[in-house]
């Protein structure tokens, strides 16, 4: 209590009596070579909170990532934690490192992007801090008031967080990306620690290789559903996507039927996208799929069933056989 008062007074003198002092730690997501685009969206959310922004880059030999992040305008400090234990970015090894940093710096907010990485890591950190994390926020009303969707995007909840440390994952598509220029943050190496875990070990990753843009940040997304009938037929969508420089997505039905791999799934339990243009081909438009794409600026639906729910959200609907319409579209573009 006394400490809080003292802190408020001290800060008060510096920033005016009523100024609140926020300090945010953003945990950067990267693959040791390049920064994930979602980190730039997360930084924009951090700016909205206000106060100092520190970015943690934890990994193995991640110099290039550090070099790109310290150029971001508005970042105060970049903490670099280089440790072999962080191979595979396992929450079991990263959490104790984050706790050590939190103990030293006493951040009021800890943020990551709401990706597989962020979702796996952040709740573990929150549990250790005994606070309730807030997942996948789409807006920030105040330093303690956040907006998120529930029920597959069919309701929007505004909540006030009562915990003293706010642990938050950020929906990338809901915040503009900051540009990687204009700043000159100072870098600081985090004291080394023994973060190796005997409990878990990273074996390997089996990533889908593609020359197309990344699904969650693409300007145009072409998605296929059950109506594609087979994995081979997805070639029709790849040709269209290549013409548009688009990413390819899929509905759960297409993934479950084995047409494409699961990392292409768009929806409540897959990826959330909000491109400028979303072209849904042979997708009926179940609640769970709409959850992942209904914030797209323009939605086009191609489906032979005029009753398909997708037409209720589509800006332009084409009632046609996709096996005729898609090749025609590709050819004429």
């Amino acid at each position, binding site marked *: 209590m006394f400490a809080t008062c003292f802190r408020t007074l001290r800060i008060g003198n510096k920033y005016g009596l009523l100024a609140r002092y926020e300090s945010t730690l953003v945990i950067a997501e990267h693959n040791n070579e390049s920064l994930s685009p979602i980190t730039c969206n997360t930084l924009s959310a951090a700016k909205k909170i206000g106060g100092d922004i520190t970015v943690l880059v934890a990994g193995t030999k991640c110099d290039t990532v550090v070099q790109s992040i310290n150029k971001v305008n508005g970042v105060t400090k970049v903490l670099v934690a280089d440790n072999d234990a962080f191979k595979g970015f396992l929450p079991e090894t990263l959490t104790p490192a984050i706790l050590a940093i939190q103990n030293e710096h006493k951040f009021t907010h800890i943020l990551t992007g709401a990706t597989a990485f962020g979702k796996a890591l952040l*709740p573990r950190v929150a549990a250790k801090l005994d606070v309730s994390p807030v997942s996948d926020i789409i807006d920030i009303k105040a330093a303690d008031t956040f907006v998120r969707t529930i029920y597959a995007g069919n309701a929007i909840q505004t909540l006030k967080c009562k915990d003293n440390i706010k642990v938050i994952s950020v929906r990338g598509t809901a915040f503009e990306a900051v540009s990687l220029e204009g700043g000159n943050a100072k870098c600081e190496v985090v004291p080394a620690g023994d973060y190796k875990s005997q409990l878990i070990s990273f074996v390997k990753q089996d990533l889908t290789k593609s020359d197309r843009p990344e699904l969650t940040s693409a300007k145009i997304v072409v998605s296929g559903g059950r109506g594609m009938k087979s994995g081979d037929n997805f070639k029709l969508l790849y040709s269209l996507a290549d013409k548009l420089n688009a990413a390819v997505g899929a509905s759960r039905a297409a993934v479950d039927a084995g047409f494409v791999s699961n*990392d292409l799934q768009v929806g409540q339990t897959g990826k959330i996208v909000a491109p400028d243009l979303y072209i849904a081909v042979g997708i009926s438009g179940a609640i769970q799929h709409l959850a992942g794409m209904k914030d797209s600026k323009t939605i086009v639906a191609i489906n032979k069933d005029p009753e398909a729910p997708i037409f209720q959200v589509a800006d332009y609907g084409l009632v046609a056989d996709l096996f005729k319409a898609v090749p025609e*579209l590709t050819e004429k573009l």
Partner: protein
Amino acid sequence: MARALVGVKRVIDYAVKIRVKPDKTGVVTDGIKHSMNPFDEIAIEEAVRMKEKKLVQEIIAVSCGPPQSQDVIRTALAMGADKGIHVEVSGPEYETLQPVHVSKILAKLAQEEKADLIIVGKQAIDDDSNQTAQMIGGILDWPTGTFCSKIEKDNNELTVTREVDGGLEIVKVKMPAVLSADLRLNEPRYATLPNIMKAKKKPIKKITAKDLGIDTAARIEILSVEEPPVRQAGAIVPDVDTLITKLKESGHV
């Protein structure tokens, strides 16, 4: 052999189009069809398959919630769980019950029941939090295999295939461990009528969070729950040419 604790949540059925209450305090739940969270069905199925392979000895299904939560425990028992524990939380306390509370309850129960494997769904389709497994792992200091699409057990080690953003990832975790089930993990079975009848005789223990010494005080205040913005109705175009013209007009191609 392992003892598995499986968390199951009663949620509004996935096919129901939800309605927001006019006073903006939440969504309408009275008189609405509820069922087991789809990811939890997958979690139970996986535990039952492990028991069938003699990798697991006993399965304990746990649900935290109002009296009706017993229905989903019964479903879990009919699918093959051995016993149930109902942690009753209802009324306003349930409105603000969050993964932070549930994970503490499940962690405590896992210790009391001497479980060495906890399986939950990756997220509940109502609050869409995707936190509980990770938080249990944090509380117990157990390794956590999140978003599992394949689980193989070899003595005291599990090889887990995880669904990550770019594809798949494989990790090895030592038991005791926490796992969260993704959609692709398995295809849950339907409970047969004889099994539903048998499930009626299986025990369900009823306790409260207080009995376990867990504080369920609200960590959040729900300020409002609102309808999402409605998209303006679009137009049906007659052919591909018109579609291309429209897309060119709006500057998309």
